[in-house]
């Protein structure tokens, strides 16, 4: 698989550069953790990768989909939709759909966006929940889950779209240290399956446990 290529990405906020000229590449099967103190724009960098935010300069490419900061708004919106079809995102707060059960959360993308048949989507969703270890919570609502369980559902929801790249924003912030290892194991396994993993974190232990490359962002301010 092709992975994700970031080139020359810059973003300023309120006249202050968050990051400047960031270039990095994550190949399929690889796990990369971007480290750095808070306030260095790690999360913003990640959000620029699937077009939730727009960089000031630079490009993001996944296969033949190119998200360029210089595009017209219409073009950028179209490219962002195409990008999101190939890039999964796991939010720091998980953002599970609060009005839907765990299973419905995982089925939502395939059925509504990819127009998959509901029966097929259900079987795949159940398999994914099995894979991330929360199959027993399929009928529960998000607010009844622990932080760790919510995170796994969020991962399953992203995986259900069969992405080439998975972006994770501060994946350990809601986990107690004992759980960090098991999350790292899960992510390593996903990378082993050919997925390109890009996580931002300030947790050294997590970076070590995932065992991939570590990129350090320096404070630019």
């Amino acid at each position, binding site marked *: 698989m092709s992975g994700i290529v970031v080139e020359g990405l810059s973003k300023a906020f309120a006249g202050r550069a968050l990051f400047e000229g960031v270039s990095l590449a994550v190949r399929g099967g690889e796990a990369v953790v971007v480290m750095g103190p808070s306030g260095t724009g790690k999360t913003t960098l990640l959000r620029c990768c699937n077009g939730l935010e727009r960089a000031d300069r630079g490009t993001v490419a996944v296969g033949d989909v190119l998200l360029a900061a210089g595009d017209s708004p219409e073009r950028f919106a179209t490219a962002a*939709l195409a990008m999101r079809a190939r890039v999964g995102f796991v939010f720091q707060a998980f953002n599970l759909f609060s*009005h839907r059960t765990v299973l419905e959360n995982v089925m939502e*993308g395939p059925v*509504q966006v990819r127009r998959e048949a509901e029966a097929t989507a259900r079987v795949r969703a159940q398999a994914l929940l099995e894979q991330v270890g929360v199959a027993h919570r399929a009928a529960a609502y998000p607010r009844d889950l622990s932080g760790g369980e919510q995170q796994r559902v969020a991962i399953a929801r992203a995986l259900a779209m069969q992405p080439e790249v998975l972006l994770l924003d501060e994946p350990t912030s809601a986990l107690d240290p004992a759980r960090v290892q098991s999350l790292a194991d899960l992510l390593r396994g996903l990378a082993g399956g050919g997925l390109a993993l890009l996580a931002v974190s300030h947790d050294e232990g997590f970076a070590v446990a995932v065992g991939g490359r570590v990129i350090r962002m320096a404070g630019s301010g």
Partner: protein
Amino acid sequence: MALALLAACVFAATGTAAAETGMERIRRTGELLWGGDLQGGEPFVFEDAQRPGKLAGFEVEIAAAVARDLGARARFVQNDWSTLVPSLERGTFDVAMNGLEVTAALARRVHFSRPYYVFAERLTARVAATGLSDLASLRGRRVGTLASSLAWELLGGVGADRVPYEGVEEPYMDLEQGRIEAVLLDDIIASRYGRRPGLVTIGDLGQGRYAIGVKWAEDDLWRAVDGALARMIASGELRGILARWHIDGARQAALAAPVDASVTARSTSGGINGHVMGENRHETDGFYLGIRPDHVLLFVRAAGITLLIAAAAMLLAMSWGLLLAVVRMPSRRRWRRLLSLLATAYVELFRGTPVLLQLYVLYFALAPVLALPAWAAAVLGLGLNYAAYEAEVYRGGIAAVPRGQIEAAAALGMSEGLALRRVVLPQALRFSLPGVANDFIALLKDTSLVSAITVVELTKRMTIVAVDSGGWLAPGLLCAALYFAMSYPLSRLARRIEQRLGAGA
């Protein structure tokens, strides 16, 4: 404490009333307060267009003459025509005089003077109408008149489908529009307001009399007022006033005839001027505090109409309001911003003006271009008005959906529209539910306003029964009980749905 205060007030009020007779009061104040309704218009009592703020009309002149006879000045008190008698009873004014028709039912409640005008009940219809001739021919027809009038009772007696109006011009407007089949009203009204190109007078279906109403308890005042009229009739002053207003005629010769005892005595016999009154039932057994068993059935039916109008209007308000709220969501697109501006203007306009005014515009002002049936205007008027409120409730609900939910939808590759449909609205509607339920209960009670456009719903039914029977307490309580019986289950139901949805929100 509050109760004691109230009791003290009541005691004080009745205390002074008992201490003073009607004539003593008028001598003390030097004023004869007389109640009427300016909406009755020309030639009864109306604001003189030439002299703003000044009143004119034949009743204004009669009142002035009677007051002069009593050694006082006449002072007009504005009061809805349909509640003139209850207001007289509670002492808002000394006498009621505004085309007050002498009926057996009313004669039990107010002490009528001798008549000052003999009117004819005039039937007006469209030129093309067929099969209308006498009272009996009106059975099952939609006929407009003033509620609680003699015509109202006559029409009820022959089984006509009565449509109640508050003003005297509106029935003829509606007749022109084809909303009703005929109008039965006093000849004075018919000749002033019923002269329209497409309308024709079918004939006079009977006679009645206008008299001055006095409280039964104030015998000295009644004697003085009746005496004043007698002197005005004898001297020709009364006929002179009528002639000045072009309403004198051969029929008025009856004024000089000896007074019919059944009119001025507290009689319970129904016949007046040879009519057999349509409704003689107020005197029957089972009359309890102004409510009889068959009244209850009428009330329940009126409650059904109230509920139906409220439900239909709410359905309209919810869907139209949702559309308005969605259109008002922020957007970068120009045409969406323009639409949003229009929707905002709509919301502010409909929230910022009285719903009663909107109903009048829909039903009366719009009639020449769009003659809506009354029920449709009621549903549309309330629905369009409440849509503005629902739009605001939904807007709040949409704003309450966490940003992360929308971003999660975007990250899954959902388009704006799909995210709106699948994520934003389902959650926003849950947040909106308490507000919507609250508005529905408010709407249920606001339906009472549609009586202004001739729909007889629960509150109108209550006033009609209360005015007819003289008791406000029992009809009022029954009416309140029915409103409560409808609104309370609603609020319980809303609470239950809220709790069930809460499990998933």
